[in-house]
């Protein structure tokens, strides 16, 4: 694998998708925990922490996803033909849920003083969105799309009766809850909110083991479904090995109530390694067996223009993101709720 424009393009996009997976998981999980605690009448413990974190950043989360799919069409226009045609239903459902979730978040936060029905909807959509988005990963493994009269057609029965589909759905749900719990444990601890920290720590530990079990289960499923991909995963065993060690590190730190910040760092590294390990082993296919990053790639002029735009854009974004994090995420007064300067 040499560093071609194709590789640069897919790496950039994969990075942003990883960013989305992390920030969106925190958001989705937070919504679920909040709803669950409202249901069990313990909302007072978590609501504050979750509101403080989500309010200034909710809009930013969405952009990561938009960035990814706009970038995919830019770098790999042929994906529009294959995925655009076949993903109509799952992607539309995901958009509708995202739309309801995003706008009602704003409605409830800025407009009114919370409503229980809304809280539950926020919690539930947070689980359905990763579930529907994760089916795209399943479809990319091949075996669900056939070509009929030159057009790709998705076989829904095949998709929904496959154990691979459901293991990936379960993994997405479990991972969302795990990532979110670990992050919020750290955040609650920074805010000095002891009871919230303890509750979230418990959630983090509960969801840790299922995350590992389902992730391993998927690798096992792939052996039957897509042997080529499975073999490439085994070639990269060391990446997944290191990722596992990071996982152990996170769980140990949380168990011992030590350094939650480092625990979240290890978690991010664990998921980054697994995510990139998965991505690299998927190479060169975007969609088994029809589409590789090479035959779907855009022309050279566009690729270079996009990469230049990307670097320039990053030069603008990184300082702004840093400012956002410094003002809210890493600002003691804000995190602890000493200051509220909302318009």
């Amino acid at each position: 694998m040499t560093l071609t424009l194709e590789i640069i393009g897919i790496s950039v996009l994969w990075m942003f998708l990883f960013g989305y997976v992390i920030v969106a998981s925190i958001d989705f999980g937070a919504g679920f925990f909040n709803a669950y605690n409202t249901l069990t009448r313990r909302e007072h413990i978590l609501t504050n922490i979750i509101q403080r974190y989500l309010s200034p950043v909710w809009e930013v989360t969405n952009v990561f996803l938009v960035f990814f799919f706009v970038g995919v069409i830019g770098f790999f226009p042929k994906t529009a033909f294959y995925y655009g045609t076949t993903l109509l239903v799952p992607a539309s459902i995901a958009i509708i849920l995202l739309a309801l979730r995003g706008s009602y978040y704003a409605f409830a936060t800025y407009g009114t003083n919370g409503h229980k029905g809304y809280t539950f909807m926020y919690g539930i959509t947070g689980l359905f969105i990763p579930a529907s988005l994760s089916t795209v990963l399943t479809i990319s493994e091949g075996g669900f799309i056939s070509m009929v009269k030159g057009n790709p057609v998705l076989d829904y029965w095949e998709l929904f009766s496959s154990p691979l589909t459901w293991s990936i759905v379960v993994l997405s749900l479990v991972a969302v809850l795990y990532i979110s719990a670990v992050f919020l444990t750290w955040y609650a601890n920074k805010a000095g909110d002891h009871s919230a920290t303890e509750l979230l720590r418990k959630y983090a530990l509960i969801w840790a083991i299922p995350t590992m079990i389902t992730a391993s289960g998927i690798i096992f499923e792939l052996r039957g479904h897509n042997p080529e991909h499975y073999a490439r995963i085994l070639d990269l065993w060391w990446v997944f090995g290191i990722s596992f060690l990071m996982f152990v590190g996170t769980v140990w730190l949380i168990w011992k109530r030590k350094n939650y910040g480092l625990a979240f760092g290890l978690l991010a590294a664990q998921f980054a390694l697994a995510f990139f390990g998965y991505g690299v082993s998927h190479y060169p296919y975007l969609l088994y067996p029809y589409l590789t990053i090479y035959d779907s790639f855009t022309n050279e002029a566009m690729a270079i223009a996009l990469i230049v735009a990307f670097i320039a854009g990053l030069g603008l974004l990184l300082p702004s993101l840093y400012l956002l994090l410094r003002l809210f995420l890493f600002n003691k007064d804000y995190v602890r709720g000493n200051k509220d300067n909302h318009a």
Partner: protein
Amino acid sequence: MGNEEAVFFSRVLTELTLSFHIIYATIGVGIPLMIMIAQWVGIRKNDEHYILLARRWARGFVITVAVGVVTGTAIGLQLSLLWPNFMELAGNVIALPLFMETFAFFFEAIFLGIYLYTWDRFENQKKHLLLLIPVAIGASFSAVFITIVNAFMNAPQGFDLVNGELININPILAMFNPAMPTKVAHVVVTAYMTSAFVLASIAAFRLLKGSNHVYHKKALFLTLKLGLIFSIAAAIIGDFSGKYLAEYQPEKLAAAEWHFETEENASLIMYGILEDGEVKYAIEIPYALSVLAHGDPFAEVIGLDQFSEDEIPPLYIHYLFDLMVSIGMGLTFLSGLYVFATWRRWSFVQTKWFRWLLVAGGPLAMLAIEAGWWMAEVGRQPWILRGIMRTEDAATTSGQVDIMLVLFAGLYLILGVGSVVVLRRMFRKNPVEQEIEDRRKEQEGDFS
């Protein structure tokens, strides 16, 4: 579902999404500038009312921006889901501005989050105002980049198509296509204009509904001054748009103006109806079409006779054109009258009936935006990419578009009703008189 049906439902769904999104997108592009101007005036004049105006607008803006964001995500994905063949081609040539739009939007989203949560955090108000500049720039540039893509659909360039293969692709040339300058300027300026009239509507409505607070009068005067400036700008740019069309898309201009025969000294047809190919009840303005198209009353204007039957857009776009232009002119006149009369201290602008006219201004401006976009999109038919790809060849082959149409229609209904209810409740619960009182108490509390 046959392909014809898939094309039909894809068109309906896209039209529905765009018609809904454009309301929130227009507000999203224009309002940050209005907030910025109000806050700046407030700081300069040291007038709490303008600062409060900015603050209350910002609060309402968050609600509309949320709907704008999620429906924008919807249209972004729907382009690929409903028009995969178009996006495959377009992705090769015009992906750059689409990609840059996400950056502009990212930039806006970050600073909007910061701006909203840092009221009163700075000693110096000007610092807080500075945070709004990236929001306004990001919002306007989102519109610029997306409109560039639309301009490309009208006047594609920057590539060669040889035996179905794209060669010599130049993304920069594709961006700076002939349709781009007038289209971008028109979209951005009318977004400012519409936002100003929408805000003026609200102020006029509050004045009518019994609140005689000077706060609303200041708001009304400020927004109508801005509305006047931007509507004059929109008219000037509209004139340039006519010249662009005459040069590059004569069939669109001819269809919009019901100009059937190519001729010199062409007159402009306003209003009227079309019956069996005959124009009835229309107002004809001699030479005006030649002036609009070429800036010369005697110039020749190409008519529909130069085009084959299957390349002519539907003729009903004439009604849309008339609607857009009439509203635009009407609002220019209305705001001009208000500003002039206020300056001359004429009292009729304080009367009930005049205020009702001003209340109507906001919704009318939004209607003009809709009519303008319908005309722009329908007027490009039968092409999705003019001269290159027909709309019917671009659509998905998927059989489930009709069900998605129902789902999305439900979504927009929920979002539309939800945003209106929330906005109403937000400002009802906290009327400006009460907020001014609260702030006064707060400040007195500081000194005690």
